[in-house]
């Protein structure tokens, strides 16, 4: 035996570790399977119930494969390592090309590099208009059926609606032409530099400069002559790694500076999906090397958020139907109303089990003004 071990020592080590890996893979999915994959922002796949009826079905095999992909020992870490490795290598390759190719979009997975900065490639505007046309019909119908509240539309133009090598798409003109209201405005990007100034690089959201500009424009759109909220303090850190960075491998590939501004605002009562909790309180620790993102600073998306401003001089109520763009300016807008309701239709149905009916909601909550606020994608979301 000793002789055998001595002669085959290297091979025995190989076999031992291989058995260890395979056994781990065999047993782990059954013992305490993980439910949540934080690194992928989703629920983990779990092994399906295997019965004699489904054991030979392709769907069962697919589910098993997906479950193993999530539940194997160190699966999350291994996947992350691969994505980070790939992201780093490919980003380096892309930057080399992007630096040499001025003003040209260099594709990199689902995003692109333009002059070294992460951007989304512009959508085909003719196709986008087709989707928007459908929604304009829908909006007009909603406006027509409701003469008690005023409707306002504010579209946040992002890189997907701007071809930086050409003119920005005439989205505002198109909305004004189609919608049966003149209460329409868009957050514009005038140039690539303007875009760099108002949006994050690693994330698709507007930054503190863009948010504040948007907020002031919305005040004008709503015909409010009030003074805008004033900045009281500002905190910055260098650990933002947003949605665009996620596509490349997340925080380990790209990070940037993010600044969060405190404003002089009243104390609100905030209800999130019926529960009284703090919302949009920045988890923002400058001293720690913590990766942060838009949601953790300004608040995540929910089906319903209600701000009650007891200090309000006005008794009007505002309904904002919006995507995550509004998260950063909800509290600023809430300053000008008694009650501010924020509905994200993408989550409303999940929470309340029914489709969101804007006019019905406005009537039952004594809403005075309705603001549709979001990105180009949100404006064509059929759940609206």
């Amino acid at each position: 035996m000793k002789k055998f071990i001595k002669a085959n020592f290297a091979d025995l080590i190989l076999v031992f570790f291989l058995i260890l890996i395979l056994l781990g893979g065999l047993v782990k999915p059954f013992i305490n399977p993980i439910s949540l994959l934080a690194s992928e922002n989703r629920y983990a796949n779990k092994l399906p119930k295997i019965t004699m009826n489904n054991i030979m079905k392709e769907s069962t095999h697919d589910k098993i494969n997906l479950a193993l992909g999530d539940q194997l020992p160190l699966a999350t870490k291994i996947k992350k390592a691969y994505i980070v490795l790939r992201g780093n290598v490919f980003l380096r390759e892309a930057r080399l090309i992007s630096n040499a190719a001025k003003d040209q979009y260099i594709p990199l997975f689902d995003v692109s590099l333009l002059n070294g900065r992460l951007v989304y490639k512009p959508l085909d505007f003719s196709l986008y208009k087709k989707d928007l046309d459908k929604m304009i019909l829908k909006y007009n119908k909603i406006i027509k059926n409701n003469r008690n509240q005023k409707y306002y539309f504010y579209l946040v133009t992002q890189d997907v609606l701007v071809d930086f090598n050409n003119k920005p798409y005439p989205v505002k003109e198109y909305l004004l032409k189609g919608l049966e209201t003149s209460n329409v405005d868009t957050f514009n990007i005038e140039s690539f530099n303007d875009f760099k100034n108002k949006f994050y690089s690693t994330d698709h959201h507007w930054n503190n400069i863009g948010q504040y500009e948007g907020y002031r424009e919305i005040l004008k759109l709503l015909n409010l002559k009030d003074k805008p909220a004033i900045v009281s303090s500002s905190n910055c850190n260098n650990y933002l790694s947003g949605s665009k960075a996620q596509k490349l491998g997340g925080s380990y590939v790209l990070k940037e500076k993010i600044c969060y501004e405190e404003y002089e605002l009243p104390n609100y009562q905030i209800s999130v999906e019926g529960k009284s909790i703090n919302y949009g309180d920045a988890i923002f620790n400058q001293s720690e090397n913590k990766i942060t993102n838009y949601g953790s600073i300004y608040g995540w998306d929910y089906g319903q958020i209600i701000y009650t401003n007891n200090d309000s001089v006005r008794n009007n109520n505002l309904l904002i139907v919006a995507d995550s763009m509004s998260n950063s300016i909800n509290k600023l807008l809430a300053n000008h109303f008694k009650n501010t309701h924020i509905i994200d239709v993408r989550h409303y149905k999940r929470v309340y089990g029914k489709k969101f009916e804007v006019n019905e909601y406005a009537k039952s909550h004594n809403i005075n003004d309705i603001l549709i606020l979001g990105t180009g994608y949100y404006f064509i979301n059929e759940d609206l």
Partner: protein
Amino acid sequence: MTFNGLTFIFWFLPIFFFLYYLIKDQRIRNILLLIGSLFFYAWGEPVYILLMLIITVLTYIIGLLINKFDKQKKYSMKKTMLLLSILMIIGALGFYKYSDFFILNINQIFNAKIKLLDLPLPLGISFYSFQILTYIFDLYMNKIKVQKNIFYLLLYVSLFPKIMVGPIVKYSSIEKQLYNQNITFDDVVYGIKRFIVGLAKKVIIANQMAMIANNIYDNNLSSAGTFGIWLAAFAYALQIYYDFSGYSDMAIGIGRMLGFNFTENFNFPYIAKSITDFWRRWHISLSTWFRDYIYIPLGGNRVTKLKWIRNIFVVWMLTGFWHGANWNYIIWGLYFAIILLFEKLFFQKYLDKSPSFVKWIYSFILILIGWVIFRNEDINVMFMVLKMMFSWSSTNLVEFVQAYPDAFYYSIFFIPAIIFMVPTIKICEKQKTTFKNIIYNGMLLMLFVLSIMFLLSSTYTPFVYFKF
């Protein structure tokens, strides 16, 4: 089930081998092997497993009859049985694989409107059909004894390491191992190492080469330029080599772990210095099959020159047709027939005198052209690609990246693909000291983990805006 699936690696492999090595009784072990093989096949092909079983049962009966008529010296009946079995096996293969090809051609030639059958191709049918035929042919030629126990014939046909993608293992080569699998520790270790190498070839290299080739071929080729077209051809050549040889490595490795010695299927084909040499190194089990069961029975080269040329054309046309039901595969087969004849009749003597590098370049370019024919089922596209390969047009790097981003980014994988295209691994395997062996095995272990990493990466599907 495929060897490079997580289910196979983390479920089937450990459970099956644990039981297989636990059982000492050879008969029970064989029963387990048969059950495991049928389960493995049925996992991917729950319906057409019946077809495989029926063909095996009928082959078994015909085999008994061939043996009986041989003993009774009823040679015409014996021949009839042989023809019947060929008709049955090739008939099934033809029906499932080639029906639509023939219908399409009949429709085109006679302007007919016969509806296509659109049949799914039963998994591994091309491989197991040819393996069953080796039993029948060798039995007919009295090279082997008749198999009187259907269990062993079924075990031979369904043996899971080789049923899907080969190698095409002759019945005669593993007949004895069907009864008794002598497994040593060295066999197990060799099998494990071979499996890891095969898995890495498939998931680390072949899949990335596929990204490059598909990205170029499946998009508008106008931005590719001459460089891009050659890059795609090279990537596809590497894809098909690493894919197929990787699978063969895994099959041979698992076979060895089970106590079977399967035929080698590849021997570094891209270092070949002539096309004749290439076909001695590429898909060896298929080339051997055609040589033994078609070329030699037709007379091989021991006939008149004209008949010999005919034999070559027949064999290569069939080789092409075996690969797929489309004209490009036939053209591909005939393309090699012409080159092989050209080499054998005129060129080999000049080639022998040429420097090694010239011989390699000559072979490799012809092989690449062959793969372009093989890859493009649309004949018009095929000719267009070939034309683009030989008419110069420059490639703008930025336009290339914009049009084929995957081809650009994944090009980094050409480095390992080229390194392991030559016998690097054989050099590594020669290390003998314990220390060097530990290093080598450690590298293999890392290769395995890296392969799992690539496999797992396909399940990385983040939802960026999802809220917990």
